[in-house]
């Protein structure tokens, strides 16, 4: 990706304790795990750097306590980070005054919360219109826009309901509609589907992908569910103990996990739907003879063909040029890495 990053995090730290700034300075801006333990400080986010590109879904994945929630709150400045830089379209977000921050939130950011964060005393319509209301939009204008958003998330006819009258999935649809009401550039989702039943979660994930196809937002999405990360993410960052352990596409992560921790997550990943033929193909040259597979095809889609053939099959790129070959053995090894060992 060559486009300039929409969001850039540079050496972001969030430390909890009596004097976080002083603690960082004392340890040369790079305290070690022992330093945290000894002085009773908690390093919720430790030296995290990454970029998010326009139109991309970046997933931050981690177990509870890994710092993912603190990280998104640092980027949105719901909790000010201890140190580092957050560039939003090249401007340092941490230098924004309170007024500028409010302005940014009113126009550029939208956020969806795990427990929905709906205002219990307001109807669906009024909840969705809320961000427009606080930025001073006239009633007519904000309600028209809110109705559009409600229609977008498929809640037409429920405008006058109150949150308590809706199911969890419906409430989160309201949360999504509200976060989109100001037409934000950047969309933050903090474990948006974690509080929902598995079936509803699946449905909401599909809904999310549908919306993103329509809207093309720049997205930072937090989850603790690796399957969800794989399903939704363009790239995934895995956090552990406040550090970003690996940031990669699902395929790179599955085929080349950075360490045992990441490998543990990828073990049960649906490899057939993540890995492409090109990634597992050998570089040997096999004549192209009518039977061949595209390098960008998922191995699950090519499996029937490859497994039924006794010989290696040529792998070609989009232009039809051969780039390598794949045979039965290679494919099985890719699908069952543990069994092949």
């Amino acid at each position, binding site marked *: 990706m060559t486009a300039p990053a929409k969001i850039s995090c540079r050496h972001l730290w969030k430390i909890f304790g009596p004097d976080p700034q002083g603690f960082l300075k004392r340890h040369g801006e790079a305290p070690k795990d022992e330093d945290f333990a000894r002085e009773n400080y908690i390093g919720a986010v430790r030296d995290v750097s990454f970029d998010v590109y326009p139109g991309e879904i970046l997933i931050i994945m981690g177990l509870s306590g890994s710092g993912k929630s603190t990280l998104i709150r640092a980027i949105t400045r719901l909790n000010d980070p201890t140190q580092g830089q957050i560039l939003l379209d090249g401007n340092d977000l941490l230098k924004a005054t309170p007024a500028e921050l409010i302005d940014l939130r009113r126009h550029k950011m939208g956020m969806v919360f795990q427990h929905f*964060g709906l205002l219990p005393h307001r109807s669906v319509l009024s909840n969705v219109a809320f961000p427009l209301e606080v930025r001073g939009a006239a009633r007519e204008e904000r309600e028209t826009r809110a109705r559009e958003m409600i229609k977008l998330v498929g809640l037409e006819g429920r405008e006058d309901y109150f949150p308590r009258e809706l199911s969890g999935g419906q409430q989160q649809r309201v949360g999504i509609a509200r976060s989109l009401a100001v037409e934000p550039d950047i969309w933050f989702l903090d474990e948006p589907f974690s509080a929902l039943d598995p079936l509803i979660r699946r449905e909401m994930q599909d809904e999310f992908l549908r919306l993103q196809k329509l809207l093309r937002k720049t997205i930072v999405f937090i989850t603790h569910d690796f399957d969800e990360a794989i399903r939704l993410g363009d790239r995934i960052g895995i956090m552990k103990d406040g550090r970003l352990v690996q940031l990669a596409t699902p395929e790179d992560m599955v085929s080349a996990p950075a360490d045992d921790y990441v490998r543990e997550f990828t073990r049960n990943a649906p490899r057939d739907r993540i890995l492409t033929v090109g990634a597992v193909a050998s570089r040997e040259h096999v004549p192209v003879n009518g039977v061949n597979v595209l390098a960008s095809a998922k191995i699950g889609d090519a499996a029937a063909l490859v497994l039924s053939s006794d010989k290696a099959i040529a792998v070609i790129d989009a232009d039809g040029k051969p780039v390598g070959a794949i045979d039965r053995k290679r494919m099985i090894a890719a699908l069952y890495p543990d069994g092949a060992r």
Partner: protein
Amino acid sequence: MTSSAAVVRPAAARAPPLDLIAMVAVLAALLVLAQLVPVFDKWPEALVIPVRGWVTDFFAWFAQTAKPVTRAIAWLLAQPLALVEALLYRGIPAWKWPPLPWPAIVLGAALLGHWIGGRPLALLCGLASFYLALFGLWPDAMQTLAIVLVTVPLAAISGLLLGIWATRSRRAERVLNVIFDVMQATPHMAYLGPVVILFGFGQVPAMLATLGFALPPMARCTILGIRTVPRDVIEAGHMAGCTPLQLLWKVELPAAERTLLLGLNQVVMQTLAMAVIASLVGASGLGQKLLFSLQQLQIGKAVEQGVAITLIAIVLDRMTQAFMRRNPQRIAPGTPWVRRHRYLVAFGVLVVVTIAAARMFPALAIYPKELTLSYGGPINDAVRWISRNLFPYVKPIRDSITIWLLLPLRDFYLFLPWPVVIGIPAMIGWHFGGWRLALLPVGLLGFLMLAGFWTPLMLTLYLVTSTTVLCVIIGIPLGIWAARRPLAARIINTVCDTLQTFPSFIYLIPVIMLFQTSDLSNVIAMLAYATVPAIRFTYLGLLRVPQATVEAATAAGATAAQRLRKVELPIAFPEILLGINQTIMMALAMVAITALIGSRDLGQEIYKALPGADTGRGLLAGLGIAFIGIIADRLIGAWAQKRKKELGMG
């Protein structure tokens, strides 16, 4: 496990903890010391520090200095009160304007009840207000109501603002918490002294004392409400781009609505209770009439007035509670204005119609005297019958309890040397919370001793401890019973709910009827008032024992009694402790009230100080009661906390 370890362990578990032995030893040493050195037995009169004189002088000086300010405040408060009084019962004689006709108020109350809580509440509101008219209590009731109606918004708004301030600043919260603790533990009556000095007698000082008493619960509920708004909701507000003010008004306060309304409910109830007690500083109204009736032992009248006060209390309580439970309702788009505001419209029509009707039929303007009823006569007869036929039997019981139980107990308290009295809570504090908690009783009780309040302090402790022990003996079995049988739970809960809405004053009426004046009457009045939390917390504590734990005990073959003793009670213990804590608080609150029927404790000090403008005496005695409450609260709180932690629930 080796056999020797198996033998050693139970023995070690059964031996009393070292702490306990040490404590008993220290107490014994203190007792001996008291016999040898008189200063360590009774604190000599000569060494009493004249704090109360200083406080009295200070208030006298302050009242003089601040006169322009206090006058201005009094004038300012008198204005809205005058307006409400004019509407409710006085009218504006100068302009020959009548007050609202009584049917407008009775039906208006019913209408309000219907709006908030549907037909049952409408009926309750309408009938209760009609009672006031029917039994000739209308003007008095309206006077009391006027104080409530004007004070409640003032107290609610100032409590709200203080609460908001506390949520914005940790330091403010800490300071306010300490102040509120003292304010809430100080009995109603102790507020009256300083207020009288500063503002004189009458309605306005009553309002001010009420304001002081009703404000802390509102502020507390505001803090609690705002702090318990879910984090997601607050963050959603931030991310929507709210300014701090928008966040407060559009997110935090509306989301905290229920807790705020709970605060309002408490403000209303406290205000009514105080408006009744404020009759002691010359606030006219139902409270004053009740006070007169009680002083003249006109029990029949007292019952009529007491029922009126209770009815008002129940109505106000049910209304605010129903309001709290209300959910915002969906309004179909396109509903016409009149339909959306039908209650307002109906009330407007009601007022116009009744005013017009009152012009034609004067009986509809002011409720005519000839149509009032009274059941005071039969009640008086009943009381006379009781005192003639029952009292001869009650009296020996009363006297023998007093002579054989209460008086020896009292003498025991008075005998105790002061280092022992201060030492016991200090050592308990040491045990549960270290030296900080040990210093608290030393400081507070020591101060009261130095200020010369030892004897009333001991008399108060004697009454409160006897009452608390009785409350526990009665309350815990009732709580257990309620937790066992749903039907019992329903009955007990209803009774408790109703008892809790009674202003404390009311409890004196039946006690005087049955036992006349004595220490036993005081104990019984306090008992009736203070048992409720002991019942309630036991019941709730048992209900909260995890179902799985109970089932595990049953599956292990425990009988119901074993389950209760070995599983449920230990787990519910911290909760029960908190109930006992509440019981002590309520008993202390009642101490001041029982002064009206004669006692010699701190409550009596407050009461006696009222007319003589002996501010120091009254205020310090009030603080004394507050100090006992705070010590009990901290010690029991630390104990409950410790148990909770040990059970893994904290």
